[in-house]
């Protein structure tokens, strides 16, 4: 206890000295630091902040010091999080390396692999992308066809991925490839890492409905990757893939949290204030229906935040994220989608501008334009990381123990006509 209090005092003092003032304000989308070889720092303070935090390993507070992490236990890392929240400090680094790949490497990779990759994730030196989905393998991820064929000490990789977020800006990729072509589809997949600068890798950005291009088509044409880059056992990649998805879902569920790291300081972050502002209301929001909907949204949002905390406390007692990551993923995503629908209602036509045609933004402010784009982007929340429907399948089967139709179709085929309604694909969906 004493130790914790001393740690709190030290941490508070350190943050006071080291967290630049501009890093204590809401973080606009374009100031999020993703790191990597071509890292962009819109705000020079972001660079300073990243370096200072990375020196202490506090970009990843609970990871082992051996690999550059902070080495803090849960209690100490909670203190750090609380102290950062107290001054509204921005996260110094956001990355797929931190939220998805790192935890899985720490759990399943070799010491050499950890030594090679973890410190660069901690310091934000290498930016990772996720090569899972393919044109023919979305929800039915295990149906993927990208091939890796052994040739001497290398694998030769051929195929293509799609929806690869930030593939055009990433330095390395963690990738699912097929290494056994005879085995049942879950048993022939391997998990492999390689440099996006390797010869034969190319990317082509895809434009989203929001006008941005956050994801790409990614092509592999005889890409040569050393065997030592394989993580875990050959043909056992599905186990790692599923584990990583749980981390991904937990990360995505964070979109629904009611405060803190999601606060972009935008119109959607204070729905009631926005709604009152655009109606000229002073005491109370004058539209009773919208008021009720915002109240319901905020209650759900507070309850969701508590549930994330509870789930983290429960995970401490068991081991890491579990099937409830699907509950959180879905609820968080639906909340985020509701948030932006409400933001559109709150600001009326002013939230529906696409771009400004005036020099001084007198037609649409930057904040207003951001809401429309974020609203469009939010629609992807219930698709990325495994769709809403796939998560419901996971909850129904893994948590509630409801029977799996696909397992039964064989038994009852020919006897009953109505059992075909759940496709055979379901069994192989990205369910973990």
């Amino acid at each position, binding site marked *: 206890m004493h130790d914790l209090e001393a740690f709190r005092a030290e941490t508070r003092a350190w943050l006071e000295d080291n967290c630049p003032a501009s890093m204590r304000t809401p973080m606009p989308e374009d100031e999020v630091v993703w790191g990597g070889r071509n890292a962009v720092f819109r705000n020079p303070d972001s660079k300073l902040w990243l370096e200072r935090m990375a020196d202490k390993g506090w970009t990843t507070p609970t990871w082992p010091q051996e690999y550059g992490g902070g080495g803090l236990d849960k209690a100490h890392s909670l203190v750090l999080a609380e102290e950062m929240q107290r001054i509204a400090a921005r996260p110094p680094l956001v990355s797929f390396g931190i939220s998805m790949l790192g935890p899985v490497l720490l759990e399943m990779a070799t010491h050499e692999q950890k030594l090679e990759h973890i410190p660069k994730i901690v310091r934000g030196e290498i930016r990772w992308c996720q090569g899972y989905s393919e044109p023919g393998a979305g929800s039915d991820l295990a149906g993927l066809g990208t091939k890796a064929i052994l040739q001497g000490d290398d694998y030769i990789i051929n195929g293509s991925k799609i929806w690869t977020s930030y593939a055009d800006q990433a330095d390395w990729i963690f990738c699912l490839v097929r290494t056994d072509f005879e085995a049942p589809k879950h048993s022939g997949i391997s998990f492999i890492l390689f440099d996006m600068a390797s010869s034969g890798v190319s990317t082509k950005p895809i434009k989203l409905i929001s006008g941005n291009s956050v994801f790409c088509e990614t092509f592999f044409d005889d890409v040569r990757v050393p065997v030592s880059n394989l993580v875990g056992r050959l043909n056992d990649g599905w186990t790692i893939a599923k584990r990583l998805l749980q981390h991904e879902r937990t990360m995505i569920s964070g979109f629904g949290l009611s405060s803190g790291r999601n606060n972009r300081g935008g119109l959607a972050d204070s729905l009631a204030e926005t709604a009152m502002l655009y109606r000229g209301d002073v005491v109370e929001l004058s539209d009773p229906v919208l008021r009720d909907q915002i*109240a*319901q949204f905020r*209650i759900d949002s507070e309850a969701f935040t508590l*549930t994330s905390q509870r789930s983290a406390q429960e995970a401490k007692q068991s081991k890491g994220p579990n099937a409830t990551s699907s*509950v959180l993923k879905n609820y968080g995503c639906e909340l985020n989608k509701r948030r932006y629908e409400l933001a559109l209602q709150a600001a009326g036509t002013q939230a529906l501008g696409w771009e400004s045609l005036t020099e001084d933004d007198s037609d649409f402010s930057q904040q207003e334009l951001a809401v429309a784009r974020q609203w469009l982007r939010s629609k992807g929340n219930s698709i990325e990381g495994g769709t809403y429907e796939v998560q*419901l399948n996971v909850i129904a089967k893994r*948590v*509630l123990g409801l029977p799996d139709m696909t397992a039964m179709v064989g038994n009852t085929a020919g006897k009953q006509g109505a059992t075909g309604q759940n496709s055979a694909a*379901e069994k192989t969906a990205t369910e973990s």
Partner: protein
Amino acid sequence: MSLVLNEDQTMLQQSARDFCREQAPVAVLRHLRDSKHPDGYSAEVWQSMVELGWAGMAIPEAYEGFGFGYSGLGLVLEETGRTLVPTPLVSTVLLSATLINLAGNEEQKLELLPGIARGDSVVALALEETAIHNPLHIELKAVKTGSGYILNGNKDFVLDAHVADQFIVVARTEGESGHQHGISLFTVDAASQGVEVQRLNMVDSRNAGNISLVDVEVPEEALLGQENKGWAALSRTLDIGRIGLAAEMLGGVQEVFERTVEYMKQRTQFGVPIGAFQALQHRAAIMYSEIELCKSLVLKALYELDRGEEAEDIPALASMCKAKLSEIYMLVTNEGVQMHGGIGMTDEFDIGFFLKRARVAQQTLGDAAFHRDRYASLRGF
């Protein structure tokens, strides 16, 4: 802040669950209803609960309670919500004991609380005057006389009215209906001259009644707290009541859901258990997620209640709990009946009891709309 139960709490939960399953199952409520039982609750079951210490759960030790706090009482309420056993737990222990403890002076506490903890008395809170929860709408008048007060007016939907030996009557001593100032609280003996009780037969088969007071005389000592200033204690009591009721509702929600999922695994149609149909699976998964949120809210609210002086945000937490649980109890009971098909519509089957209890519990101390409106005001919009 801990959102997981500690060892003591887990043990209490388990023993409460065992007790309710074995000695107070839904069959108890069914029997009380079918036999048109004059008391509307089983004195025998209540006595066993008293012996387990449940009546004194949240009463301080100084007044013969057990000081187990509201987290303890909440766990017990949750388990009673799973079997719907009717007892004076809500009227007397959750509401009246809390109000006496918050508003009463030392003498009143010493006089009233030990009796509640021992299970000797049933005390009912006489609050509502309309069919819609509205705790500021108080028109029942108390007029000061030389020796005390004279009370005149009516109260609706008083829980356990016809079995109570005492009422705490919320009255107006000054000002107009709708105002906080001028609300005063009085203890009134049920046997007093001028008190008339009309028992109500509600859909959930639980005790409630209307009471009328005609020139009821009470002594000065019957005033609980200060004249005109009863609102603060009343308001806090209502919040505690809402949280406790939400705990009971959480028990019902989980029970209906678990029974429904179990049925989905057993009932076969088209050659497969109906739980294999994705249309039902998805609705079950959605309910499961909502219930997870309900649990977190109730745990948090109970935790805060037991922090005493340091408790934070109780009014908003109470409204969040009551709004969310009202919404989800409705969802789960409706889906529960639907997913059971024809059998869900039969009186012989228990699920209907939960549907009925849900609606009464929703209305008690404010429904979802009331609490969303209140939450919005508390949060400044």
